[in-house]
């Protein structure tokens, strides 16, 4: 599970309403939701994003309601990885369950700047900053979570397990 992409930084306590405001919850289609990703943070935020880019956030990313639309919108925007100081609990679960890679690195988020290019090895837990040359180590994603991610989320994972 390797990813390379440009960083978009966001702040602390980004809530699920900032990620995808309730007025856009009339669909569960990832692409549709993706078009309005972070619309609650800044109008047109999504325009700066290229598929494969990475979000680097502060503390408590994804706090607020338990809506699963939030990680779906991020994925729909073409973003596969969010790195944060910390995640809100239910978002953290929902993220992996929907197939989004989440890495928690604490204060080391300070070492990453907006626009940096990161090369991420989620299995090894390695984040290489191609812009600065520095490498940040984090706990590798456990095997089970990798399996969920590889299957594209919890629904597929359960479906396969039930078939098997």
């Amino acid at each position, binding site marked *: 599970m390797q990813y390379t992409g440009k960083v978009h930084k966001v702040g602390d306590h980004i809530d699920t309403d900032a990620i995808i405001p309730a007025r856009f919850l009339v669909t569960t289609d990832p692409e549709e939701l993706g078009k309005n990703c972070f619309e609650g943070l800044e109008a047109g935020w999504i325009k700066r994003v290229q598929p494969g880019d990475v979000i680097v956030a502060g503390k*408590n990313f994804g706090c607020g309601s338990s809506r699963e639309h939030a990680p779906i919108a991020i994925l729909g925007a073409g973003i596969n990885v969010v790195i944060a100081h910390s995640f809100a609990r*239910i978002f953290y*679960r929902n993220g992996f369950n*929907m197939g989004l890679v989440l890495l928690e690195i604490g204060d080391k988020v300070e070492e990453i700047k907006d626009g940096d290019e990161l090369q991420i090895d989620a299995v090894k837990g390695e984040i290489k900053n191609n812009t600065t040359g520095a490498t940040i180590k984090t706990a590798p994603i*456990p095997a089970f*979570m990798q399996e969920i991610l590889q299957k594209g989320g919890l*629904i597929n*994972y359960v*479906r396969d397990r039930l078939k098997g």
Partner: protein
Amino acid sequence: MEQTLAQKLLQRATQEEIKEPGQIVQCKVSLVLANDITAPLAIESLARMGAEKVFDKDKIALVCDHFTPNKDIESAEQVKKVREFAVKMNITHYFEGGNVGVEHALLPELGLVGPGDIVVGADSHTCTYGGLGAFATGLGSTDIAAAMALGETWFKVPESILVNISGELDEYVGAKDLILYLIGQIGVDGALYKALEFTGNVVEDMEIEGRMTMANMAIEAGGKVGLFPADAKALAYAKAAGRTGDEEIYPDAGAEYVRRVDIDVTGMSPQVACPHLPENVRPVEELKDVVVDQVVLGSCTNGRISDLRDAARIIKGHKVAKNVRFIVLPATPAIYKQALKEGLLEIFAEADAIIGPPTCGPCLGGHMGILAAGEKCLATTNRNFKGRMGSLESEVYLGSPMVAAATAITGRITHPKEVNSDQ
């Protein structure tokens, strides 16, 4: 490694060795819970997973408690969907009619949750069962669907905060005041992602119902779980509820805690959380000028028999103030019957209270006690977010059953000692 209570409980349910917080482990679940609001979504996810059956028809509880007796056509449709699913899957523990109670009061009473259990529920107050020494927490709907299909789920091993409560409690101060005080101290994100573990002489002496009141509000501090040891009291409660084979479970001496909070309760007043956050906590004396329109006694926080007894003791022989609605909702049918037997319902009725059925009702602004703009309510519930009980311009204050009863008598937020007729 010496383990915290949270780690110990997870270790019992997983084959992996727990080494540190942050680790992710797969755990078998003892019970999976959903209610009339969250079950329909989980049922949809189950269908998308292609699950034709649930992992164990005896280990799923579907409790239609939020809007029942159904308040409108939409809620009736939701309940119907849950009922049809329960029939199709042959779910043993389905509750809707005269057997329904507020989920987090009902399941412990029936022995469906208890010491050492791993419980996941599509409801954030699932953490209530931590009062019995169960690792219990709320999840999203797809997670709950997966747990219903597989009988297991994943957890990130949390860090724990040790809350040591010591000293001597005033006769008018109890579990609700302690948890409000703690949330006032650490804030609504003070325990974010962490386990709260309670200890100290006050906790040891506390009965299980009080412990459940405290564990219930762990989520209001952002906590994943609020845990009490599975001690002799917890085992006795579980046994009385018909369970067998439970064992005592304590944290290891020397386990590592990320933070320790010491609270000395000696001299503490009853506590009240002011609008619009559970962390806006003040001693009751400071709020004596707040005039209320409604008082609610009930919910998964404080709708148990000990709560009704506390309130009845204060209100006995008094009348509810003019123009105040005092709504009493025993949390389960068993509590209702016990309150009837003990004469508590008569005391409330004589005081001109409104006695309703076991339901969540007004707690979430569902029905049976909705607030108009500008109205104020003192409730024994757990959340006072803006608009939680009705109009966005209404206000909810959170307090104990004794404060609720005293407030119902005077019509303003009142310290129970002011009105206690025993004295």
